[in-house]
């Protein structure tokens, strides 16, 4: 086994490491753009999910129906086609968005739709008797939501919403098709110049796996930490 690992050669590791050093500036710039777009989209889809999820759970007239249409359209069409629509089709009616705008906008719209469902499910999972107890304590309307539904339902929705954020980060790689210089675009440009294909994809894959696995670990830690006392019945 160890002999086999020896054959799997250290020279490959050395090659990969020198590949990273040779292209450090470009790779760092790509990673920075991936993280920037992801951060904007995660913040944006959190706000969208919270507001529309609350509107859906409390059946706010008009807003709730519009939110339902938004969620169904986005969830049932491929995100790549949505990106094509924003970047390649909208100029037809005079709306020209640059690659950076489309990059964060597309994943925000996509993540917002999935997050609306996450939060709706979380808020609807709050037992009615909690809200009744709140009413008995004198809470009204919006303060019931802020003090009872939000902290409890938000806790229930948190793991699934982080799963959505993981998908958001992965989906930023699709901005390759509009040549926005995030990690994937940059890596493929380096590959085209250096032809160090194995090294390129090793670095690219490992970077995504480290981000995704870290977020998965966060979910697992949160799930045990935030579990409601009642769940352990």
């Amino acid at each position, binding site marked *: 086994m160890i002999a086999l690992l020896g054959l799997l050669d250290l020279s490959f590791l050395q090659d990969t490491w020198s590949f990273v050093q040779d292209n450090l500036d470009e790779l760092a710039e790509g990673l920075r753009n991936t993280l920037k777009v992801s951060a904007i989209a995660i913040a944006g889809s959190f706000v969208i999910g919270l507001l529309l999820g609350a509107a859906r759970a409390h059946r706010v007239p008009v807003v709730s129906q519009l939110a339902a249409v938004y969620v169904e359209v986005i969830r*049932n*069409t491929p995100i*790549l086609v949505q990106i094509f629509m924003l970047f*390649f089709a909208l100029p037809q009616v005079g709306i020209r968005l640059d690659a950076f705008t489309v990059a964060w906008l597309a994943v925000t719209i996509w993540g917002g739709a999935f997050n609306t469902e996450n939060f709706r499910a979380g808020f609807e999972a709050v037992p009615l008797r909690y809200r009744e107890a709140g009413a008995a304590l004198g809470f009204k309307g919006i303060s019931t939501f802020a003090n009872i539904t939000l902290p409890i339902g938000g806790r229930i929705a948190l793991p699934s919403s982080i799963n959505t954020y993981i998908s958001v980060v992965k989906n930023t790689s699709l901005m390759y098709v509009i040549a926005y210089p995030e990690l994937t675009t940059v890596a493929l440009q380096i590959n085209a110049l250096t032809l160090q294909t194995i090294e390129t*994809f090793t670095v*690219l*894959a490992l970077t995504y796996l480290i981000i995704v696995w870290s977020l998965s670990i966060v979910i697992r830690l949160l799930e045990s930490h935030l579990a409601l006392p009642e769940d352990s019945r």
Partner: protein
Amino acid sequence: MSLPDWVEPVARYIIEVGLANTLKLSAIALVGSSVIGITLGTLLTIRFLPTRALIRLYIEVWRGLPILITIFIVYFALPTVSPSLRFDALTAGAIALILWGSAQVAEATRGAVQSIPREQHEAASALGFGWVGRHAFVIMPQALRRLLPPVVGLLVNIIQNTTIVQVIGAPEILETAERQVERLTFEGDIHAIEIYGAIMVVFFCISFPLTRLAAYLEHRLT
């Protein structure tokens, strides 16, 4: 009212080439993902560390990577390892989708198999079934029912994710649509919104009933 002249050849090409390849790709990916995923997921329940570690690694890698990266790895990186691993774009796309899909199915299968009560295993053993017979005739028939809703959900994701194969130029529905948009634009006739809009409608008409079906199956099970 008749349709404008540009519509007919565009629709014909997108449906006959693009939609046909998308459906074929989806079917292959679904079958491949299910067969490999159910096998790996069942093997994952065996308490033998090396196989468990390997299957766990397989699941976490192919679930963790963006599908686009997996497609690139299969299409660009594998041929540099060995020339015999050179595939055309549609085949490379199918392989990448199966790697990702089978990881999803494997994880769901593990959950479904482990959700079958231990008494079922013990009763089957008492009746003289070995490991294979026990799983084939007692455990899997029950686990497969619980697996149905997530697999229908996966089918929706597979169908939508086939569009990513467009990036390596495989002639699925989005690629054929793009070719038609570019041809018309070249002729000075821009119809990008209509064509990509129609593609969205096609996907919606396929996906929406399936997401409803997945929700219904989920509901019926609980």
